[in-house]
């Protein structure tokens, strides 16, 4: 006997609803259906009768409302009106009741459906019709999938009427369903019936006009619709208000890529205020700094067109010297010369390999081959500009607040497939907004595009807008997740991401190539010596002049303006200095940190050599023993070998453990987070520090203690600075312990503190022998290149001193010997 599966109606409905995340998604789903049906327009129309509880209702209107006990209680008839009783003003149930009276129309002028289509496609859930016939009659690639569009209707409202007229068809079909019927637990899907009626002698327009009135029909162009589908959804599930509709309007704006606009238009209206919305227009991008259009042929070539729109050509013209620069690119030759920048556009072809900057061997060609043809358009809009920057780079002026506003809505790299968004990629305020991890790239590079290391400059995800166009036909391997929220993250998807990132990088590099020479020229013309002497001369001259102006006293206002103008000049000069100083300080910090790591590592050379010396030989030994065991027949010899095997394995384990510790230290210390200024809790810092080094100290029998009350102390600094300080001090202590023969057998490091007169005194002391006796001036130890140990760099304590001074503090020697005791003085700290 063979028995069929049965699906409960409820389950079918659940599956359908789960596939659609929110009301917006549902509307998009229906627009997709319109697109697939070859519509040229799709209209979303809200009949927003109520978005709040009305305080009074006309008698005639009141009688038209569906009867409801709450309604009867809440309103009192006064003359010809029904007036709301005050205690119901904020009644949630009443509000829901009114919101349910709103109606949503979804109208298109597509092909419409006949009885057969309704039966075979519309009424079959999960139909694969679109997979079998991926092209529409107009040659569009159908964008809906998996046959779940009708559940979108369920998501929007409890009742649904659908009117459809086939192109050239004579009759109108009315299809009607009440979704809540599905809820009965025992009912199977095949038992649910939808009503289907044939309405003769009527046109679609007539039906709509009845509801909307002729005027509205005219304005919304609905009266032009001769065939297509009209969906009327009532008993809405969402409390639509003007605000939420506005959000929808904004979001639909980027639903359709700009180039599709002409062929398929989407409108959104509010019946009660027809001027509110209108055609959904993709926000026009004319005010960008850079535009890049890439065309990947699906094989090996990427054609990239770059449009540079960042600079004011007139201002740039004056910067002749920029085009004499030869580094990093020859600015006298295309595409970096003035002419090319003036003409804005240039195109370059890249082979995949060059673009990805990978060797053929490292490229997983297979995955890239599977990506398929795609185009990627990408806009860069910086959202702010310091007035000082404009002295270096001749930027075009722009309205920063407008850009920030626009970007806050539309920034992100979005994916479209066959004209429709693949969500949630590039969706602002969602986790997949930065699906390319551009933010992480930015965090890893701290350089501006014009700086020396600007080749590392990375664009922030908040400053770009991009569209990747895919199609179901060309990009077969980039498939939807079953949940319809995004693409499956397979290896092709990763290759695809790689490709997109490398295209973005072409822009980043180009911006560096253009801006670096501008910076170089500016520096040449404004180097600090020139600036200082110029500023000195100006100040001298100006102070005389200001004195005269003040003595004159006649035109005081004019005099003040003049003085203020002068201050502007000073301000700019100071700003120029400041940015230079910031840059240098940043570099210094990084260098000090790296130097300290180097110094610290040299203390452990012995151990590192030890690891290096043992790791490979041990593994070779292991191999040898294993081979012997395999061949050995004599059991006693075999057992012997197994003993040796055990010893070797144990040793390899110990060595691996050490390697593991070192890798942990390395990763921790070079973490880029440590280069950011932040509030550091010293207790937390020292506890982490102890953890990092714990193993190494323990093995050398070094006790490391710190005052637990450090957890009440916070300082504003850079973690990398504290690392530099403690790594250098620790290095010195360890060296004293393991190299000095006059060192005591007890190895102890302790860190305590005392607050004296608003200064935090951090005492670092060890149980080592202290300073060598031959050191005459104890403060010599803070001088650069002063060292008393073989192979010492003599940089450690010098670096510590520099950092302390940089942090508005100092370091002094409290005790020379035995047991060196240092005092790190911080003047800025918080006690919590």
């Amino acid at each position, binding site marked *: 006997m063979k028995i069929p599966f049965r699906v409960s109606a409820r389950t079918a409905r659940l599956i359908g609803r789960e596939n659609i995340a929110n009301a917006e998604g549902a509307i998009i789903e229906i627009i997709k259906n319109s697109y697939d049906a070859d519509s040229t327009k799709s209209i979303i129309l809200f009949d927003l009768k109520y978005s709040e509880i009305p305080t009074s209702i006309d008698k005639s209107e009141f009688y038209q409302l569906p009867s409801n006990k709450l309604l009867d209680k809440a309103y009192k008839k006064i003359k010809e009106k029904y007036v709301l009783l005050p205690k119901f003003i904020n009644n949630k149930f009443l509000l829901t009741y009114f919101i349910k009276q709103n109606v949503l129309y979804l109208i298109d002028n597509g092909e419409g459906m006949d009885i057969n289509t309704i039966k075979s496609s519309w009424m079959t859930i999960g139909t694969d019709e679109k997979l079998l016939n991926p092209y529409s009659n107009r040659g569009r690639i159908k964008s809906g999938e998996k046959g779940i569009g009708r559940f979108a209707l369920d998501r929007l409202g409890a009742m649904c009427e659908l009117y459809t007229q086939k192109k050239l068809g004579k009759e109108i079909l009315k299809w009607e369903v009440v979704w809540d019927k599905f809820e009965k637990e025992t009912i199977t899907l095949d038992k649910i019936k939808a009503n289907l009626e044939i309405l003769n002698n009527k046109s679609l327009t007539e039906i709509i006009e009845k509801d909307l009135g002729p005027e509205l029909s005219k304005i919304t162009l609905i009266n032009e619709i001769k065939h297509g589908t009209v969906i009327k959804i009532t008993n809405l599930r969402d409390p639509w208000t003007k605000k939420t509709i506005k959000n929808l309007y904004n979001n639909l704006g980027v639903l359709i890529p700009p180039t599709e606009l002409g062929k398929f238009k989407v409108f959104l209206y509010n019946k009660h205020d027809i001027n509110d919305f209108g055609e959904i227009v993709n926000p026009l991008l004319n005010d960008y700094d850079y535009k890049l259009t890439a065309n990947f042929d699906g094989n090996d070539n990427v054609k990239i067109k770059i449009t540079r729109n960042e600079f004011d050509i007139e201002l740039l013209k004056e910067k002749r010297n920029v085009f004499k620069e030869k580094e990093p690119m020859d600015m006298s030759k295309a595409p970096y010369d003035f002419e090319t920048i003036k003409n804005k556009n240039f195109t370059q072809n890249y082979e995949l390999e060059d673009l990805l900057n990978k060797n053929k061997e490292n490229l997983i060609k297979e995955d890239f081959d599977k990506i398929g043809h795609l185009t990627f358009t990408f806009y860069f809009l910086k959202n702010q500009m310091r007035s000082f920057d404009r002295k270096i780079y001749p930027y075009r002026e722009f309205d920063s607040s407008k850009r920030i506003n626009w970007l806050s809505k539309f920034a992100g790299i979005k994916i479209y497939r066959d004209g429709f968004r693949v969500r949630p990629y590039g969706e602002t305020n969602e986790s997949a907004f930065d699906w390319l991890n551009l933010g992480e790239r930015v965090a890893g590079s701290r350089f501006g595009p014009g700086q020396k290391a600007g080749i590392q400059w990375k664009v922030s995800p908040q400053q770009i807008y991009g569209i990747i166009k895919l199609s179901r036909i060309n990009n077969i391997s980039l498939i939807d997740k079953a949940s319809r929220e995004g693409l499956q993250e397979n290896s092709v998807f990763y290759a695809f991401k790689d490709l997109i990132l490398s295209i973005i990088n072409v822009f980043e590099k180009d911006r560096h190539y253009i801006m670096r020479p501008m910076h170089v020229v500016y520096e040449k013309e404004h180097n600090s010596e020139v600036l200082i002497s110029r500023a000195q001369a100006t100040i001298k001259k100006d102070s005389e002049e200001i004195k005269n102006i003040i003595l004159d006293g006649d035109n005081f206002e004019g005099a003040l303006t003049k003085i203020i103008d002068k201050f502007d000049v000073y301000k700019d000069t100071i700003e120029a200095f400041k940015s230079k100083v910031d840059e240098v300080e940043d570099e210094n910090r990084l260098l000090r940190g790296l130097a300290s790591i180097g110094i610290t590592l040299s203390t452990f050379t012995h151990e590192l050599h030890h690891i290096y010396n043992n790791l490979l030989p041990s593994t*070779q030994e292991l191999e040898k023993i294993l081979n012997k065991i395999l061949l050995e027949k004599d059991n006693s010899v075999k057992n012997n070998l197994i003993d040796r095997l055990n010893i*070797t394995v144990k040793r390899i384990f110990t060595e691996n453990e050490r390697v593991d510790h070192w890798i942990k230290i390395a990763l921790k210390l070079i973490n880029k987070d440590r280069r950011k200024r932040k509030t550091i809790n010293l207790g937390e810092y020292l506890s982490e520090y102890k953890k990092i080094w714990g193993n190494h100290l323990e*093995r050398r029998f070094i006790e490391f203690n710190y005052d637990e009350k450090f957890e009440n102390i916070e300082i504003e600094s850079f973690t990398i600075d504290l690392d530099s300080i403690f790594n250098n001090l620790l290095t010195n202590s360890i060296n004293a312990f393991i190299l000095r023969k006059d*060192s005591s*057998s007890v190895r102890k490091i302790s860190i305590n503190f005392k607050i004296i007169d608003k200064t935090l005194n951090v005492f670092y002391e060890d149980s080592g022998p202290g300073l060598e006796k031959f050191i005459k001036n104890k403060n010599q130890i803070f001088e650069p290149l002063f060292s008393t140990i073989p192979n010492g760099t003599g940089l450690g304590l010098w670096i510590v001193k520099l950092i302390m001074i940089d942090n508005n503090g100092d370091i002094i020697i409290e005790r020379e010997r035995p047991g060196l005791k240092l005092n790190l003085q911080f003047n800025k700290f918080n006690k919590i």
Partner: protein
Amino acid sequence: MKTMRYDIVYIDEELNDRNDMRDKFKDDPELNLTVLPPEEDLENFVKNLIDSNYDALIVDYQLMEYNPKIKYDGLDFLKTIHEIKEEYPVIILTDYEEDARNNAVKNDVNPRNIFDKRELKETEKLPRKIKSVIDYYKNHIEDLKNRINELKQKEKEGILKSKEESELIDKDSELERRINKKVSLDKTLKGSLALKSLNNILEETEKYLKEISKGKN
């Protein structure tokens, strides 16, 4: 052919490394290895080692890092040994050869017996190196003894030339320094006169000793 058996000792503060070395020499038919951790009292440690009559001492260069009680390194160890027995075969192994060699030169120690651990481990050179160091030392002492006897014979026969006499004194002193530097006589006491009377005393003493032992029997 009779195989020579060498008794050697390896000193390292790290247990792993000691085990490692022990393991390495387990199957060597010629080398009999004892492993030891360094002891706090260097003088006493060295004295005991010398008394135990090993053919060679192998020591790790860095001995303090993982043991806070030790206050000397391989180089100090070597110097202490050589204060008693000059040129006694001491091999220093190190993970960081360059450092150790530089330090040796600074301390006026010939760095020829300082070797890189990894190189020796990887190439199986270590046993050969050890053997050749021991053989060289033993052969040298053997040569010294032979030559001294040769010269002494000549002296007895009264045909020792003055050049040969100074050679005898040199060689004798060298041998003494190699056996026990601390009780060796100063070279100046070994001039032909001093030497003659000294030798006479020694010969007399030996004669008496022989008679005493004869009397015992």
